[in-house]
């Protein structure tokens, strides 16, 4: 398998440089990384056109984000590239934790069957971006992807944004009603608006190296505390496609990043991990980590998503996965606002729900980083005690923290969700669980492919929906989608009706709903101020 070859993308000069007047667009997206491209596709699936500006002309250099979680894969599947990602990626679900040369325990992130998507795949960011770029081409009338188009200035006015762009062919301006900033941790949009992150900066340095080698390491996540082969506190090994392995070595706070990046210093460190196998360095980077975010993600007509809004340490794979969950939450809301189906206030719930998600990611990744960097003799004593006990005691395993791996974020208790009256089944706010089903025509399908993209009712069992409900619905019973293996009933309950949001989160749960119940929950889930205003704070 050869190494990834970056092709240069080309695009025709924008219409503004072919004699046209400055144009108005509903949405301009800054940054054609995974988050920006996913946003363009999700908006296109809602029929909303966008212009995507990127200051480069190729996909990510270096593998960067590699671990894609089940929830993210479900989102990518809704966007149309999930199956392709799983086919190319390295599927894994088992993690092994070592202390020194001793295996302390292993864990299985998805020990049950009946899910379309695996717990995790590892796939280099450049593949994800390539697949997304190719998927964008399915929407030639809706996605205008402009490579080598660099944002240089922006000004908010009249409920929109004036954007100044530089290209190799010249400069131009355009006006957008909404600007979605997906331009990463060093967001130019953020700088142009004079916004900054608040949060914690960690001084610990880490070396990340991708090496190409033939090896028979299993498709598992291996993590060492105090490894014997490396003088630092920790080491992490991940397998990627194309015989590429990610090796992450903790270096301590005093490491010199320029020195540590030099091949003559990296190679001996890698040899200590992989032994005598021949290998080649594919990509090397020395990092420090931050766990910080913007105070809010929506600033007038400018909306931040992904690393431009919040950054975390990579332990737990909460950066790329968090960014894709931002898009999942934002796209249907922004589309509803652009199409005049919802008031712009609906976007405040993006702030509310995804700041909650970002804080969860920041909390977990900060704790992981703390566990990896004991600050005092006492913290070291406790970590040693936890690692000792973890070999035999489950409670101590729950305290070992090598990264709390990205899990779906619950939106329970937030404004758009109607609290349920009983405890059975999935709580409003949770992601609708997946389950294998048999369609009325005999095809095998997954529930995750039947809900989402628009508001739908999901009926489990023989509940009769009231006459006059004007919503698409999926019914799981003998006459509808058959639950032959019983997974749907086990995960969703019996004789229950769910209102499922376009992002597959449960908005409401009913047992025998009257038509007014469903209508009211739907209006609430769409951010109708007349309903949400009555909700006690």
């Amino acid at each position, binding site marked *: 398998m050869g190494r990834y070859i970056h092709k240069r993308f080309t695009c025709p000069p924008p219409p503004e440089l072919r004699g046209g007047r400055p144009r108005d667009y509903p949405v301009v997206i800054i940054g054609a990384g995974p988050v920006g491209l996913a946003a363009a596709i999700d908006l296109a699936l809602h029929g909303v056109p966008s212009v995507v500006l990127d200051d480069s002309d190729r996909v990510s250099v270096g593998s960067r984000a590699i671990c894609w979680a089940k929830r993210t894969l479900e989102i990518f599947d809704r966007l149309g590239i999930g199956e392709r990602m799983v086919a190319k990626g390295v599927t894994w679900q088992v993690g092994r934790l070592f202390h020194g040369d001793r295996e302390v325990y292993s864990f299985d992130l998805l020990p049950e069957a009946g899910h379309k998507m695996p717990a995790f795949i590892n796939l280099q960011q450049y593949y994800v971006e390539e697949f997304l770029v190719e998927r964008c081409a399915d929407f030639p009338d809706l996605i205008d992807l402009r490579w080598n188009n660099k944002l240089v200035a922006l000004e908010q006015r009249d409920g929109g944004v004036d954007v100044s762009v530089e290209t190799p062919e010249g400069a131009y301006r355009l006006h957008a009603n909404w600007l979605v900033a997906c331009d990463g941790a060093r967001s130019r949009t953020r700088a142009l608006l004079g916004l900054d992150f608040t949060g914690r900066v960690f001084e610990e340095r880490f070396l990340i190296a991708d090496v190409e080698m033939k090896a028979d390491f299993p498709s598992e996540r291996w993590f060492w505390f105090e490894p014997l082969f490396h003088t630092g506190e920790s080491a992490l090994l991940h397998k990627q496609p194309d015989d590429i392995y990610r090796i992450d070595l903790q270096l301590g706070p005093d490491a010199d990043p320029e020195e540590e990046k030099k091949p003559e210093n990296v190679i001996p460190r890698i040899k200590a991990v992989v032994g005598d196998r021949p290998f080649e360095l594919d990509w090397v980077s020395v990092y420090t980590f931050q766990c910080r975010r913007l105070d809010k993600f929506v600033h007038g007509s400018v909306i931040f998503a992904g690393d431009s809004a919040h950054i975390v340490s990579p332990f737990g794979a909460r950066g790329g996965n968090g960014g894709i969950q931002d898009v999942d939450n934002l796209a249907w809301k922004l589309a509803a606002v652009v199409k005049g189906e919802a008031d712009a206030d609906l976007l405040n719930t993006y702030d509310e729900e995804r700041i909650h998600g970002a804080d969860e990611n920041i909390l977990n990744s900060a704790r992981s980083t703390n566990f990896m960097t004991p600050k005092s003799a006492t913290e070291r004593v*406790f970590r040693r005690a936890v690692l000792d*006990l973890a070999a035999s005691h489950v409670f101590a395993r729950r305290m070992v*923290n090598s990264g*709390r791996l990205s899990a779906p974020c619950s939106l329970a208790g937030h404004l758009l969700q109607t609290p349920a009256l009983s405890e059975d089944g999935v709580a409003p706010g949770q992601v609708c669980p997946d389950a294998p089903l048999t369609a009325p025509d005999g095809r095998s399908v997954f529930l995750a492919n039947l809900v989402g993209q628009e508001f739908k009712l999901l009926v489990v069992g023989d509940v009769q929906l009231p006459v006059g409900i004007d919503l698409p619905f999926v019914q799981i019973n003998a006459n509808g989608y058959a639950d032959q293996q019983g997974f749907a009933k086990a995960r969703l309950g019996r004789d229950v009706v769910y209102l499922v949001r376009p992002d597959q989160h449960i908005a409401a749960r009913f047992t025998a709903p009257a038509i007014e119940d469903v209508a009211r929950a739907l209006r609430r889930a769409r951010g109708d101020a007349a309903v949400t205003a009555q909700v006690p704070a």
Partner: protein
Amino acid sequence: MTAWLNPDHDGMSGQADDVYEALLAAHEGLTEAESVALNARLILILLNALSDPEMALVAICAARTGIIVKQ
């Protein structure tokens, strides 16, 4: 054997990270001697909280076993 000494027992209702964080936060800014003293007080409080002298002895043995294995 009581439930909580079963190695599979997780008595923290999925909040182990919160408890661990609070434990380390309690030690922040203390000298080593102060930390040792805090730990001693905490252990005595927990032994009393068990309300079961026999189980207190079992827990002490479980902790001691870890050290014997090391030697």
